[in-house]
């Protein structure tokens, strides 16, 4: 639910700026460059961000530990509820591990790469976005590749362990279709959460001071995704089942793997439709981003 602040965003601005300027040189000089050349500036920026995080060893270790702790506490919240109630929404805790693992692993991986997108107001205030406009690369691609939070790897490891334990403890019929479902749901889940971050970024152009508003669907979404969707009432099923398709990141695919029927409005076969949810989420996200960029008038710098 809570979100650690970015690693000194202003320091990141200058590091990214210098790295990108250095790296984008050849691309400008040679317009008909191959895709490898086109990716080079992004790679250079990402590598510089990774190096900068690794160079402050103590800080990085503390970041890893706190990132790990936050995921453990989130899992503990789920566990405590099941400890008190044994069964919830038709699921036992071991089945819930599957839902939590799928959703939380997808969220962590998306957060690793896209997590800084909803901190756009910081970039707007620092005038960093105006710097992006000067470079011959798409704005959104630059924003996404301007930062990578390696500490989220610790978070992802908790989701992965929960998923593996869930898969082992639950009785799953391992047909090839199950493997396809697992992989496609996980990839779609990452895409859905990534879309949430991008949508939040687009909306931040309007909100600025009200940046906390997007936490409702980004972190609220993460919280919703790690719940059994069957406990939701109809309004929540509409909002977090379909509009912000959180049920598709964990609960619905888990139902298919477990061979369980779903509740009203969320039948089990929807578990196969996670890729559709990803396409929907990205169309909304790109729409939000486009609106935001059109609204933006510059940082006044």
């Amino acid at each position, binding site marked *: 639910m*809570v979100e650690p602040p970015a690693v000194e965003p202003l320091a990141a601005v200058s590091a990214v700026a210098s790295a990108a300027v250095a790296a984008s040189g050849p691309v400008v000089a040679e317009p008909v460059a191959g895709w490898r050349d086109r990716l080079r500036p992004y790679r250079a920026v990402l590598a510089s961000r990774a190096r900068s995080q690794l160079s402050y060893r103590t800080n990085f270790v503390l970041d890893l530990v706190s990132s790990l702790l*936050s995921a453990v*506490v989130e899992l503990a919240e789920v566990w405590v509820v099941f*400890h*008190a109630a044994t069964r919830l929404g038709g699921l036992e805790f071991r089945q819930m591990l599957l839902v939590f693992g799928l959703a939380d692993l997808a969220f962590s991986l998306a957060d690793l790469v896209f997590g800084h997108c909803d901190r756009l107001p910081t970039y707007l205030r620092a005038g960093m976005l105006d710097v992006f406009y000067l470079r011959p690369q798409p704005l959104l691609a630059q924003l996404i590749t301007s930062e990578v939070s390696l500490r989220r790897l610790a978070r992802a490891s908790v989701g992965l362990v929960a998923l593996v334990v869930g898969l082992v403890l639950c009785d799953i019929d391992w047909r090839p279709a199950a493997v396809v479902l697992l992989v496609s749901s996980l990839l779609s889940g990452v895409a859905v959460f990534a879309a949430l971050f991008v949508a939040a970024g687009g909306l931040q152009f309007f909100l600025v001071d009200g940046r906390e508003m997007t936490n409702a669907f980004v972190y*609220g979404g993460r919280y919703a995704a790690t*719940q059994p969707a069957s406990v939701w009432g109809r309004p929540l099923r509409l909002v977090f089942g379909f509009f912000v398709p959180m049920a598709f990141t964990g609960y619905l695919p888990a139902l298919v793997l477990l061979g369980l029927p779903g509740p009203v409005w969320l039948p089990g076969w929807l578990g196969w439709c996670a890729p559709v949810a990803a396409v929907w989420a990205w169309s909304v996200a790109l729409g939000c981003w486009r609106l935001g960029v059109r609204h933006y008038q510059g940082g006044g710098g």
Partner: protein
Amino acid sequence: MRVTVRVYWLLLAAGFRRQATYRLAALSGLVTNVTFGLLKVAVLLGAVRAAGGEVGGYDVAQMSTYIWLSQAMLGSVNFWGASEFAERIKDGQVAVDFLRPLDVQAATVTVEVGQGLFAFLPRGVPQLAIGGLVVGMTWPRSVVLVVLGVVSLLMAVVISAATVYLVATAGFWLVETRGVQLVYMVASGFLAGLFVPISLFPRWLELVAQATPCPSMLMYPVTILADRVDVAGACVLLAVQGFWLVVVGGAGQVLTRAGRRRLEIQGG
């Protein structure tokens, strides 16, 4: 004495007014809190029903009071661990604070409490209204308990501000306090019973939580106002809060004095 009281009153009012300036921020916080509140309702009321109408001593109406009251308090208590004072230690402005004829700890905590009290208007009251209208809540059976509950709520805001101040004093010794803040952020909300009431915890985990000041910042006032204790029980909880306020406040005083001797302002 009267002058001192007036100064702190002005600081409290200044904190209150400062929060009033950021209306969109308050609205955003409200939207987010309500979303989380509705999700908590789904899970926790689901758990109450799944357990046969009562879980950890909470029935449906009491659980609803717990959910909306704890959500309502989120703007007023600080589970983030970050504070302006931590920034002031880092950038050296704290030197100016030490030159003022005021106790640094008391002044900082007072402003923070003022901000917290304001936040209860745009973020707290609407959520209690939503909770009361949409889900239904229970309240204490006697006026005495309501009064004790409100006192406990105020204590919670002060204890939270004093604890965050304590976290910030780590900055006198460490250059980068982000790690300390992050650990506080991760642990405090959970141990305060923000996501699940601590009476639902397994016994050992409940004891761990009770050994920290965290439940005093949220769980105890909610316990009183959700009608879970009688007057004697409420007085015990208030005494526990008083104990933690003395511990946290005392530690803050000691560390401020030690830190002041340690403080080194970089640059000219």
